[in-house]
């Protein structure tokens, strides 16, 4: 069982919509999945438009605050900073197959600082898209579905396998960020 810390509908609908409007005018390229050593890409497993958001934006502070609160309450890891926050746009057909957020170098060692906690925020109203469920791998059992509705947040171990199921209609917006620190001891 994967463990996570979550808030249901904690960010209001109007605030979610403001964040989407604020960010989506400048969506980037279709995201590529790296192989962990900075090489080839595998499109079939991920189809998402992404945009990197500056660290000085308030939204980055807000989401980092949620990560730190989850860490204080639950994970108790040594966290020292975070990566840039990323807005993801999953249009119809968009998906991201089961993966880990940790980056392992060819030597088998994690890149430094290592990703320890991942946060995912559902910005869209579920009425605006179908499919696109955020799922966490749970062995042979039903995957976990910790993101309940618009404005919900989940914080989880970056090494836990998770996916975004294909969006079958509409558009789904989400934010993701990774909190980092020294290697696990």
């Amino acid at each position: 069982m994967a463990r996570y810390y979550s808030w249901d509908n904690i960010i209001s609908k109007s605030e979610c919509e403001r964040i989407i409007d604020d960010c989506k005018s400048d969506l980037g390229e279709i995201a590529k999945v790296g192989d962990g050593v900075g090489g080839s890409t595998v499109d079939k497993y991920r189809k998402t438009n992404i945009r990197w958001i500056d660290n000085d934006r308030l939204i980055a502070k807000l989401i980092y605050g949620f990560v730190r609160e989850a860490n204080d309450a639950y994970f108790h890891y040594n966290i020292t900073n975070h990566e840039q926050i990323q807005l993801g746009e999953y249009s119809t057909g968009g998906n991201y197959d089961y993966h880990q957020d940790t980056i392992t170098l060819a030597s088998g060692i994690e890149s430094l600082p290592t990703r320890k906690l991942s946060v995912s925020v559902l910005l869209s109203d579920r009425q605006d898209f179908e499919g696109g469920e955020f799922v966490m791998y749970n062995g042979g059992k039903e995957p976990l579905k910790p993101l309940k509705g618009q404005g919900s947040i989940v914080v989880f171990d970056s090494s836990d396998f998770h996916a975004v199921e294909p969006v079958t209609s509409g558009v789904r917006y989400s934010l993701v960020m990774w909190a980092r620190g020294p290697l696990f001891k």
Partner: protein
Amino acid sequence: MSRYWSWDKIIPKEECERIIADCSNIEGYRGTQEKELYGRIFIRLVSASNLATKLIYGFAHEANDAMFHYEITGHEQMQFVQYAVDDRLQYHQDLVYDGLEVAPIRKLSVSVLLSDPKDFEGGEFEMYSGFKEPTKPLTEQGSVVVFESKAYHGITPITSGVRYSLVLWATGPLFK
């Protein structure tokens, strides 16, 4: 990527067979998960004073020194595991993160293939790798693999013969 450290055929055939003969004398019990839907194996607990336990604990630490660098302070009792026909273990974690763990927790898992692959069919050790093919680091007699206890792994059903393996968990304080 599922992280692991492994050695191929590091334990000689004769030594594997000696361990199998030695451990087969221990009283055991059948282990099941979810009424055999997810797992079915036969377990014998090996004494901490058995030299095989020291050997496998040594492998765990060597892998930790080389790759994982975790704080390891002990180990659980080693298991000598027998897989007969239809026995299997679905993908599972050895360290189940369900909230508020208490130390010591399982940090590294060691698995040793004692049997000659000619002596059984099926029974492949697989590590879950998401959208990539599962990794199979344990295919030869006398091979040893050390991996993170939270990584999902499993043994496919045995279709013929018997497969013997050793498993040990190295433990320590909570991750930081």
